[in-house]
């Protein structure tokens, strides 16, 4: 028996686009946004809808997202994947698309997301599952789950609220370089600390935005990608891991399954943290990038707070993190992962405008789903990194 392994760089991203973001037109549906982004992403790569034969989609607002999107687009895909692991779904979709492409089960894969969370309210867009063991205590989910992790991290490692605030301020400074970002006004550490408390130690400026939005990504084989107009952005490494479902059952509140997904992705890519120029780290809350920097190996466990201090992940800092402004300041429609991947693709292509990091050949997007539950990592590279 032979085993098949996923080929490093066997698949490439050829087209990316956001849908309308922020506050979209009244009565737009999540599938409208997926379709809008799909057409834009196809325009980006010069392919047409008729070329798409793999559909990968997820949203909190449609249980059967791939079905509804396929109907809407009017196509007959040969491969369907509706993996729903929250904001990390799309890194998983990328890995699964690469497998399907390698196996010849489809030739052009579409990954799509859409959400009208701001228009319809968070409560309607993403109602939490009923958990009888947590429900009586009325945690404000997901914020309280991340707050419990942050409190433990502070207790165990001396992480401070100021260090958490550094993450929010860095995101805002990057957002000021992104014309599409929602929040571009000034923001100081003191503003973050003084903001209304949501679930201690997290205040409202430690929490991501709650907006409408979506995106699409077109993925094909490396061979086909080279015939298309844009420079291919290769999927060098992907890793998926699930640690738990509910925050009550997270074994160690200071260590996420990114400590598993990251090494898996790096092993496939044959790369390490030192090779990465740009990171998209899912910043649902300010504690998240701190945890992921540690778990992905960019600093030691417990040193994430000091690592981000002094503007280290802001423009001009030592490591470029969330150059689009992240879920904290650019856009967070509920399952942000795809938008983080899109930013990585733009950075590797050199198309990130004012926020472009010079010589970005390797970018890492890390997705988080649930309450630090599902962790998926994707590493993108240019032709030079292949």
């Amino acid at each position, binding site marked *: 028996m032979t085993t098949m392994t996923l080929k490093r760089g066997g698949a490439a991203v050829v087209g990316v686009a956001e849908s309308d973001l922020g506050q979209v037109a009244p009565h737009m549906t999540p599938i409208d946004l997926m379709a809008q982004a799909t057409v834009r992403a196809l325009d980006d790569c010069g392919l047409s809808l008729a070329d798409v034969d793999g559909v990968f989609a997820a949203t909190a607002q449609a249980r059967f997202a791939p079905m509804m999107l396929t109907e809407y687009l009017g196509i007959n895909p040969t491969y369907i994947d509706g993996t729903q692991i929250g904001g990390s779904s799309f890194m998983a979709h990328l890995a699964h698309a690469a497998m399907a492409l390698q196996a010849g089960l489809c030739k052009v894969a579409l990954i799509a997301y859409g959400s009208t969370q701001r228009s319809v309210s968070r409560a309607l867009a993403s109602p939490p599952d009923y958990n*009888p*063991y*947590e429900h*009586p*205590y*009325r*945690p*404000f989910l997901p914020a*309280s789950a991340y*707050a*419990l*992790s942050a*409190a*433990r991290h502070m*207790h165990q490692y001396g992480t401070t609220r100021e260090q958490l605030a550094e993450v929010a301020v860095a995101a805002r400074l990057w957002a000021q370089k992104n014309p599409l970002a929602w929040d571009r006004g000034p923001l100081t550490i003191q503003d973050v600390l003084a903001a*209304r*408390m*949501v*679930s*201690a*130690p*997290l205040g409202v400026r430690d929490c991501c935005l709650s907006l409408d939005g979506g995106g699409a990504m077109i993925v094909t084989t490396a061979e086909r990608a080279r015939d298309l107009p844009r420079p291919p952005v290769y999927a060098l490494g992907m890793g998926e891991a699930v640690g738990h479902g*509910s*925050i*009550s*059952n997270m074994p160690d*509140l200071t260590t996420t399954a990114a400590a598993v997904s990251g090494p898996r992705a790096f092993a496939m890519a044959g790369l390490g943290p030192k090779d990465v120029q740009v990171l998209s780290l899912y910043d649902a809350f300010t504690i998240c990038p701190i945890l992921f920097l540690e778990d992905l190996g960019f600093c030691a466990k417990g040193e994430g707070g000091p690592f981000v201090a002094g503007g280290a992940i802001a423009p001009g800092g030592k490591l470029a993190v969330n150059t689009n402004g992240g879920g904290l300041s650019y856009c967070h429609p509920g399952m942000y992962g795809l938008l983080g991947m899109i930013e990585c693709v733009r950075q590797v292509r050199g198309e990130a405008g004012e926020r472009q990091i010079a010589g970005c050949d390797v970018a890492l997007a890390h997705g988080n789903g649930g309450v630090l539950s599902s962790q998926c990592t994707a590493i993108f590279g240019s032709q030079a990194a292949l």
Partner: protein
Amino acid sequence: MERLEESPLAAWRRHLAQGKLAYQVSPDGEPVFFPRVMAPRTGATGLQWRISEGLGTVYSTTVVYRRDEAPLNVALIEMDEGFRLMSRVEGMDAEAVRIGLRVRVTVRDADGDAPYPVFEALEDQSPTAGKGAA
């Protein structure tokens, strides 16, 4: 195959109704919580119910601030028997609950709803406690 006549959740609540915080132990002696039909990792069935002594330590804590409501404590409690659950610490200021605080379970009867465990500090944590001599 023997049909299960009582769900894990129903069995847990039956114990709570008697004022007991129950948990399960797998055949290899591992504490299991939340209650399940099989042991995680091994898949072993035949989990045994045990009654906790009711003592634990705050593993992490947060305070939820909702508009027009008093601050509400939400905590994760590590029980001495080695399992963890979400709960809250009552009988003290929500903002004064600290990681490491030793706590004891008490069962709260929800109005017409299922009973659930909450915790109280082992030592008096009221704002005036221990300050008399200072």
